[in-house]
């Protein structure tokens, strides 16, 4: 395989992770914050950016740990615990760094970081990466693409929900119910992107 087609492959992977295989709309990961933190566009965007950042790096770290520690030791079943610990430690570290480094960034992003530890999209991306046997570069592209997909979905969701704020919704469907209907329609739209990928 030459360099050109490899680059196209990586871009396609990244694109697929963000659109056709969108982590929240097709694999249902990270749904809890997706439904509960999507009332304000700015908060949604803040959490989304934090997810992109954490997901890209934890996927890379988890890949390294899986390939160079767990596989040589034949301790693959231990990956759940190791991945969770890596994610928790990484989030803690980032929190400490931005707390020292930038006050404004900490105020904007800091409150979202602890939430991310329990975001199943982060662990899910790492588990998918193991199951699909990605290389290191593919893993980084996949982590970044998935994070961007999550960011796009939650920002769009927050925008739509703000528009709906004054509409009359049946009592039983208010809140999470209508959010799920919106998510379903968004999922339909995102499936439409699969044609783009076939053309690539």
């Amino acid at each position: 395989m030459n360099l050109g087609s490899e680059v196209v492959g990586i871009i396609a992977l990244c694109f697929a992770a963000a659109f056709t295989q969108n982590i929240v709309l097709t694999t249902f990961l990270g749904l809890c914050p997706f439904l509960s933190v999507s009332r304000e566009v700015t908060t949604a965007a803040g959490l989304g950016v934090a997810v992109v950042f954490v997901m890209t790096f934890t996927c890379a770290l988890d890949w390294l740990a899986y390939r160079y520690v767990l596989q040589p030791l034949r301790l693959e079943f231990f990956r759940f615990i190791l991945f969770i610990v890596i994610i928790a430690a990484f989030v803690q570290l980032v929190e400490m760094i931005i707390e020292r480094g930038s006050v404004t960034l900490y105020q904007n992003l800091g409150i979202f970081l602890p939430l991310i530890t329990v975001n199943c999209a982060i662990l899910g991306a790492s588990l998918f990466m193991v199951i699909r046997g990605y290389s290191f570069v593919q893993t980084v592209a996949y982590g970044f693409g998935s994070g961007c997909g999550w960011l796009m979905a939650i920002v769009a969701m927050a925008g739509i929900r703000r528009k709906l704020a004054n509409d009359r919704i049946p009592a039983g469907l208010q809140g999470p119910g209508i959010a799920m209907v919106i998510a379903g329609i968004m999922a339909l739209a995102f499936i439409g992107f699969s044609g783009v990928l076939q053309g690539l």
Partner: protein
Amino acid sequence: MTARESAARQAVLDGLWRNNPVFRQILGICSALAVTNLLLNTAVMCAALTLTTAMSCLTVSLLRNWTPRRVRMMVQVLIIAFYVIIIDLVLKAFWPAMSDNLGPYVGLIITNCIIMGRCEAFANSHRPAPSFADGAFSGLGYSTVLLAVAFFRELLGMGTLFGIAAPFFSTAWDKWIIMVMPPGAFFTLACVVWFLRSRQAALEEAK
């Protein structure tokens, strides 16, 4: 004796109906929607989750007096992960096809908020037996809603139930492929939540 009986009643009612984790608290749907396109996958997933929740709550409750408060989250995650690893290994060994079907979702039970929620809200401060019951019925509450979702998705999308062709739906019915695809999961769960919440509101009004 009556006090204990009412506590047991409460655990059952809360888990299955009043505080149902899925349609009341919207917890734990992350790892759940993906497996509801087939009833069989859903049933296995529900069994795994109920088992993990009940056993984790029991263990957390047993260890509650020896766990320092500051590290209790980490301890809880490790306890949950321990049970999930056992389930994952058992599935891989005895039912590899199912293990492939469920993919990463068995591992994702670890981050299922129902378990952490029950451990933190109940098992942390109660004796082992009630904690076990609380965990088990929360798990069962989750299972009933999920099985309902899976029932409609498989029936309308594929015309089968547990993989067996259903009368009418497998022949005359024009299959709704969308139901077994991701959007169908959202629509079906929204309808189930809608129905159950309306029922609940109507019952409360009638009281």
